[in-house]
């Protein structure tokens, strides 16, 4: 590990959203190559670009990854393709007729091929996570992968060097993404989080002794009907649990192994939820059980109704006074109120989270926020699809590199191994 990752003396740009990096990016200049040998120029270019592209990859590995062939595309106009067969380009003396002097064609932008020198590193999983804005640096992305927070095509992938194939979908645990991209907690928020953790752990150690007794409770009242909607959430949960137990107790031929696994997972969830009365979400559990039951052929057709409240025009507020006041508002104000309530529900204050709540983006992030076109990112679920390998096209290279064509050309020349 080097001494300084973000040095100020000798500028090395990094794949990170750090403010040091931003400052360096704002003042970086291309190296002065006057009176330097070609070798020296190439060496400097290689050192600068490698500090940004895959600095965790060993040089031997990178030289093996390097490819001198560069992918590129040319956007075609389908109207032109239908209209002309290409023979007009061979007219005259073989290279097309000269256009009339008054209508000069627009110069076609050149394709910056050599800006694509580091395209192979963009295929790596950790780099792709950073590019999809799920981590604040490639090193953090690498840590997420190694710690098992990343899935590729639904399966856990622990190798940051995994080379994504076109069509691969990768997802990062949303909580980790919020932690990586959110503002950090201040002192007081950290203390509040510590207190909550301490209380929770104490509670857990107290309730450990009584855990054996807990599964007994639903057995005592198996006559509970799940259709009644006026029960407390706890009671309804317990009845759901007992129903699941009954289903499991039926002879084994009626249930396949997969269904049994589903039911057991459901039971576990219910038990966990019963332990924490604050997070009772009977609706979601109800729907989960309903789904399992629906998939079974032999299941009794119980009328499982989700006890979700009807959605009124006026949002439900805590006190009747507030409710009465809300009823007097006009439609736009109501909409604003509803949006604010929705926002508060989606982004609540929660000291147990490792980031500042309500969540807000970390500082200095916006200057680094861009998503290259070879990725399709869905931020809501913190998942992205690697569509294709990055390509160069006229006027645009898809590999995000902080240096210009000259430096990238020199670096590319270095790896051609003709020094």
């Amino acid at each position: 590990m080097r001494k300084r990752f973000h040095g100020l003396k000798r500028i090395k740009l990094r794949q990170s959203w750090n403010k040091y990096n931003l400052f360096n990016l704002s003042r970086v200049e291309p190296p002065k190559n006057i009176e330097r040998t070609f070798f020296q120029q190439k060496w400097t270019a290689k050192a600068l670009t490698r500090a940004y592209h895959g600095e965790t990859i060993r040089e031997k590995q990178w030289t093996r990854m390097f490819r001198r062939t560069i992918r590129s595309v040319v956007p075609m106009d389908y109207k032109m393709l239908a209209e002309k067969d290409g023979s007009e380009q061979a007219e005259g003396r073989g290279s097309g007729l000269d256009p009339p002097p008054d209508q000069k064609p627009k110069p076609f932008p050149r394709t910056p091929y050599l800006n694509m020198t580091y395209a192979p590193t963009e295929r790596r999983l950790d780099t792709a996570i950073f590019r999809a804005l799920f981590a604040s640096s490639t090193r953090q992305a690498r840590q997420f992968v190694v710690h098992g927070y990343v899935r590729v095509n639904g399966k856990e992938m622990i190798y940051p060097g995994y080379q994504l194939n076109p069509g691969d979908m990768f997802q990062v645990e949303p909580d980790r993404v919020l932690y990586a991209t959110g503002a950090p907690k201040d002192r007081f928020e950290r203390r509040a989080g510590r207190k909550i953790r301490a209380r929770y752990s104490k509670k857990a150690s107290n309730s450990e002794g009584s855990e054996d007794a807990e599964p007994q409770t639903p057995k005592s009242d198996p006559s509970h009907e799940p259709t009644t909607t006026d029960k407390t959430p706890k009671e309804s949960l317990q009845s759901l649990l007992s129903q699941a137990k009954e289903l499991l107790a039926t002879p084994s031929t009626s249930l396949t192994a997969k269904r049994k696994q589903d039911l057991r997972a459901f039971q576990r969830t219910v038990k966990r939820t019963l332990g924490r009365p604050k997070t009772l979400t009977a609706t979601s559990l109800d729907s989960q059980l309903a789904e399992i039951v629906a998939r079974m052929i032999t299941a009794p057709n119980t009328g499982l109704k989700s006890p979700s409240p009807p959605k009124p025009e006026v949002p439900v507020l805590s006190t009747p006074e507030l409710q009465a006041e809300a009823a007097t508002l006009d439609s736009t104000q109501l909409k604003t109120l509803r949006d604010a309530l929705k926002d508060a529900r989606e982004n609540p204050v929660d000291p147990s989270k490792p980031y500042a709540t309500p969540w807000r983006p970390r500082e200095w992030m916006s200057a680094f926020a861009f998503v290259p076109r070879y990725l399709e990112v869905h931020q809501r679920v913190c998942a992205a699809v690697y569509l294709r390998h990055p390509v160069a096209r006229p006027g645009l290279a898809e590999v995000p590199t902080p240096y210009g064509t000259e430096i990238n050309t020199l670096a590319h020349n270095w790896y051609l191994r003709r020094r």
Partner: protein
Amino acid sequence: MPPRIRRPYLRTPQALPSPSHRCQCICKTRARQFSSTPKHATRVRDEMFRWLNGPGFVFRHPLPGSTNYLNAYDRYGRLVRAKNRLVGKNEKEKAEDEEKIDENADEEVNEDGEIVPKKPQKIKEAGIKETKNEPALPRETMEDLMPFPLNRQFRSQHVLSEELKDAIYERVMAEGQSVRTVSAALGVEMSRVGAVVRLKALEKEMEKQGKPIAFSYAKAVLGMLPSTPYVPYAPVTHESINDLPVHRATETQIFHPVSESRHFTRRDAGKVFDRELKPAEERVPHTELVQLEKWRHEGKIEVERIRLQREMEAKDVQSKKALERKRKEREAREMRKVDTERSEFRFQDIRVESVGRSGRSKEGVGARYGIPHQDRKKGQIKIPMRVA
């Protein structure tokens, strides 16, 4: 030798009369310093904090409703396009100001290699209302979308807005349109359409399971990126959908003499490069668009064109179905399934010859006696290469 005691730096911020921002910084964050380690204050570090609190302060928080890249600001931390707007307002009328924005949009098309249609109706809407008195901020130009000042060949490109993603999902899943049709109608690459459908399905699944959805994160990030809006009856092209990949064989320059009288077409030129190389109209992703345009040139009326296209699509679907059927038949022939209570067993016939002459073919199954492993060799990839 006695242990060396490092002398504290003479140029500590407390000892020197420092710029006001620095003082502020220290007083606010920590009241007392218990550390005896000298504060590492160098000239560059001071400069950095001066920049971060001065011209660089604009990057601390996102610019509401716009991107916020380094290249959009001058060295004093002023937004270049906002500056232009003020100058323009002093000199000319408001109407002329709007024209100027239009020119900017036009310039974008010229510089860009992609086909980006002009969006005259969107320009006024795209501006940002800063305050009630000030006029809207003009849309970003090419220059403003460059996150790296040294690299002018890289730009932050537009992403799909949530509404556009919803529209794509709706058209494919609810209306049952083909990916090809949706791609051509909305100007979104086919692979991207597929990815959006997949990701939206994942979102719905997670919603159903009651897993947390990162709404606040999505809103914040999409606010920092340039995005393509969804206009239901006049879709804005998101990207060029007819990208022709450059073939390896065409990278060389060939001098090929032909007689002057010969009608030398694209197809002929392709054959010169490589015998197998097809012409561009057959290699682009949307060949059906080219075909439609050709029918138009032949003078076919619209009803006829639509009928022909329907026929072509039906034929395509049928050939795909036939292939799928064949694949299934072959699988059923080769694979024997035995369903038990606990699991399903699948038996497949394996041929010994599939290992090949060297015994190292990937199709080969099982360990071969006497063939040493290659996994300790240099350059062998030992981590998974694909996840099914």
